[in-house]
């Protein structure tokens, strides 16, 4: 693994939980340190499975995933403490007994030792992450009472609270209100640039492709069908009936 390579997939095939057919088929990829990569493709093309294979939540039945030079299946717990993950369409039911601040603080748990409780520094890191996203006023609100967009921001704050080295975002802008759709992508760009965050964004809607995106990976039927610059990805994505056109939206 070269020094710059932070994530490496070698001939990886994965089955999504509860399914019998592979959702990711024989994928080989290398993501370099500080890259901002868009993973695009139609619904059910294997994008989420690819992301969950990278952070080790889904074990591949074939091939090997290496993150920070370590095998994710052997050192997953340790590696995941360094990966901020925002899952797709995560919604908490109304009436669920969790406050937004508690959910953000959970992002710190991997860093806190066994049998230990969160310290004041952990609580401050969670609060800072909420401030960064602009949701500190939601800290005491029950999660179930928040809108879809607010919950999505809480999940992003949770991912950032752990001060990750890698950010994996699965459709992170899908539930945001129009104002936040402008702010949050800008914030992700800023974090990526200022904190050297290696960032992978999964989406089927590329209306809000970030300025700093230098690479697009197109996934179709579980396979990587394109891996290159956004400009070169354009015709491919345009022609796909289920993927929103890049035309006129990429800055």
């Amino acid at each position, binding site marked *: 693994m070269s020094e710059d390579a932070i994530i490496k997939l070698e001939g990886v095939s994965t089955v999504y939980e509860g399914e019998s057919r592979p959702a990711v088929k024989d994928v080989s990829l290398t993501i370099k340190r500080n890259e901002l990569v868009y993973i695009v493709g139609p619904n059910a093309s294997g994008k989420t499975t690819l992301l969950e294979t990278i952070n080790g939540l889904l074990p591949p039945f074939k091939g090997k995933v290496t993150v920070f030079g370590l095998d994710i299946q052997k050192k997953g717990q340790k590696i*995941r403490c360094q990966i901020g993950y925002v899952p797709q369409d995560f919604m908490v039911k109304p009436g669920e007994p969790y406050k937004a601040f508690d959910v953000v603080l*959970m992002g710190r748990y991997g860093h806190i030792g066994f049998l230990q409780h969160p310290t004041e520094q952990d609580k401050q890191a969670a609060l800072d992450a909420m401030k960064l996203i602009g949701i500190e006023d939601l800290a005491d609100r029950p999660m179930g009472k928040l809108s879809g967009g607010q919950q999505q921001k809480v999940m992003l704050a949770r991912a950032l609270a752990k001060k990750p080295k890698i950010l994996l975002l699965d459709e992170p802008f899908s539930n945001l209100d129009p104002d936040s759709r402008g702010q949050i992508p800008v914030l992700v760009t800023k974090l990526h640039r200022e904190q050297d965050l290696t960032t992978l964004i999964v989406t089927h809607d590329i209306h809000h492709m970030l300025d700093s995106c230098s690479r697009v990976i197109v996934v179709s039927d579980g396979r990587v069908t394109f891996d290159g610059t956004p400009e070169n990805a354009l015709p491919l994505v345009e022609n796909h009936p289920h993927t929103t056109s890049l035309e006129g939206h990429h800055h």
Partner: protein
Amino acid sequence: MIWFEWFEFAIMQRALIACILAGFLMGLIGVFVVRMRLSAIGYSMSHGAFAGAALGVATATNPLATGLVFASVTALLIGPIADKARLHADTITSIVFPLNMALAFVFLTLAPEVGLSSQVANVLWGSIISMTNSDLVFLVTLFAGTLALVYFVWKELFAIMFNRKLAEADGINTKPFIYMIIFLAGVVVTFSLKLVGGLLIYALLFNPASTVLQFSENMRKVIVYSPLVGMITTVTGLLVSLFFDLPVGSCIVIVSTIVFAFALLLSPKRRRKEVQQHEEK
């Protein structure tokens, strides 16, 4: 004799202390069982304890010990099997519950003087007046041990109750904590068998947590109030049984179900949901 004068007897004092401890523990563990969606497993396991206790009666060994072995074996097998075979919770319950009940009735049939044996009745319906001092020592130890365990691994349990997959994504190895709760539920159920018996014990694990979850939007409050509700319902059930001269276990379950029904009627969460649905129409 006036009903409260019963508590002048050591036997009833032990019964009261057992109600307080077991009610508290069942209410506490019930929160994890409900929130981690382990209800089906808890259900199978509590009947595993019942089958084990029945074996104890049949073989003239301590029903508590055999109940504990059966509950533990059920707990230790069900967790990994459910994980490996990716079985739906309903499937596990549908298979293990009748199996445990069938085993329990086979064991009870093999018991000497079947049907009339007071020990058989104790296993089926519970017998709080048969609480011994050593039973109480076990319960107190279990009470202290469970509280200490929950205190020290609270953050892991809290994260898993919110969402297991996200807890994994944050670097928590969730499996040992889930198995720990399943095992702990098995032990608590077994030690509480004398309260309500094997047929009704599950209600005590499920009702207090479900009652409190109708009201609170803060998990820290749920974890405090659910054991209190468990404790209050078991003590009230005991008092009702003394007052009306009815079986203790049945009274405890009836009281806890009535409390849950009131919670359902008064729940602000449910009312909000109804208003929301009405507005959507």
